């Protein structure tokens, strides 16, 4: 019967194992920084022969249950601002719909290559700006031994001083009332990015940290609520059109639920700047990865001189493996930080017991 369902591939043991492992590593990173992992899954599925739209749809369908489990886990640790997550989730959903439509229009006007160039350019611009900022902030905190997780800048002070009657909402994560209108562009851009590069958290988490002053730990946990809302909406949209391969989604989910627990537990042991550090490292590595394919798409569109097919294949391959490396490096940092944090905790418990 599978032959009649032309969009859906037959699964073999290698494909299943590969997706399970990528799901596990991606889940670990998501549990820790609130997002990530999804950017590798879509190309990984496409490499297996899954059509692009089915890969995006199935990725989305594993994302919302994973985010739900992660959010529930981190809510137990008191790290989730559910109200902020749901409010931003609504505008993020609008961003997803607009972003998906925009993508569709670009595909119709400039073809598949134009769409790929747009996605890669969005990666490069967003990750270069936000990734550099997050990384600088993390390094500053690391070098200064600063354990304060809360950012302070003019934008945060302005956002908190703004008083628009009828729109003020109390957010527990920042312990003050802020106009929910401020969260609309934040959520919208998160959704827009999610529809474009599959990882809205690269805008969602930094915007919560640097616009509202939400602690990094809580921002990354709250992002899971936004991811749940966006993922559920996106899944319904794709499933309505019949593009979700539930088998692929559940295989990835199988691995990612093992990983997300590890990532979530890790947040209780590490120093607060580690969230920013992991996020910054992943963002900058993905930026490098995308940088390799931008010339390929520009050459295909005639914006650069024609490239040899072998060169194009090489650049695409390098880009994919740098992206996989970004995920692995992120996961290794999470595991190392978790193990170091647990060892330190056990040492302190032993010392306290000895006193």
């Amino acid at each position: 019967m599978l032959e009649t369902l032309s969009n859906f591939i037959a699964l073999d043991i290698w494909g299943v194992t590969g997706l399970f492992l990528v799901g596990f590593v991606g889940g670990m990173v998501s549990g820790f920084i609130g997002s990530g992992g999804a950017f590798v899954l879509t190309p990984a599925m496409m490499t297996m022969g899954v059509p692009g739209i089915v890969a995006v749809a199935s990725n989305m369908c594993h994302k919302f249950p994973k985010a739900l489990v992660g959010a529930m886990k981190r809510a137990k640790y008191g790290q989730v601002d559910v109200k902020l997550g749901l409010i931003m989730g609504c505008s993020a959903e609008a961003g997803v719909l607009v972003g998906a439509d925009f993508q569709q229009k670009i595909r119709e006007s400039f073809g598949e290559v134009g769409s790929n160039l747009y996605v890669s350019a969005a990666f490069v611009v967003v990750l270069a700006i936000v990734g550099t900022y997050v990384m600088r902030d993390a390094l500053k905190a690391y070098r200064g031994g600063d354990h304060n997780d809360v950012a302070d800048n003019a934008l945060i002070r302005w956002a908190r001083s703004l008083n628009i009657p009828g729109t003020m909402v109390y957010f527990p994560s920042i312990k003050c009332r802020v106009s929910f209108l401020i969260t609309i562009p934040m959520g919208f851009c998160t959704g827009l990015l999610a529809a474009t590069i599959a990882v809205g958290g690269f805008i969602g988490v930094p915007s919560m940290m640097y616009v509202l002053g939400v602690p990094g730990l809580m921002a990354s946990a709250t992002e899971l609520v936004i991811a749940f809302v966006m993922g559920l909406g996106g899944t319904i949209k794709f499933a309505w059109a019949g593009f979700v391969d539930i088998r692929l989604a559940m295989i990835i989910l199988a691995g990612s639920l093992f990983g997300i627990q590890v990532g979530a537990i890790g947040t209780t042991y590490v120093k607060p700047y580690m969230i920013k550090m992991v996020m910054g490292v992943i963002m900058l590595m993905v930026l490098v990865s995308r940088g390799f394919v931008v010339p390929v798409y520009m050459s295909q569109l005639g914006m650069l001189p024609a490239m040899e097919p072998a060169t194009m294949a090489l650049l695409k391959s390098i880009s994919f493996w740098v992206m996989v490396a970004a995920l692995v490096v992120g996961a290794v940092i999470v595991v190392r930080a978790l193990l170091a944090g647990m060892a330190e905790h056990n040492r302190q418990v032993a010392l306290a017991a000895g006193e």
Partner: protein
Amino acid sequence: MTDHVTSFTETSALAADDTAAKGDTTNPVVVYALGLTVFLLYGALFQWQDEVLSISVAGRWNFIYPVAIAFTFSFAHGAFTGMLWNALGLKAKK
């Protein structure tokens, strides 16, 4: 009297520690039961993959099937993975 009070306080503290420890301990039977449930769920999904796939990709209101499957698997498998890591000693810092 003081000894009694001290003794009572210590006993209460020990009992509280014990309760906390019990609350933190995962019942192996529950882990096995959840593991078996997850195994059966995945087994059923792949045993009847053609049927499940054809229903879930029919589109329109059939979107309910993949969404319901995702919720069911996430609750069962999410609870299982949480308890499994806990049983293996990977616990959050209190």
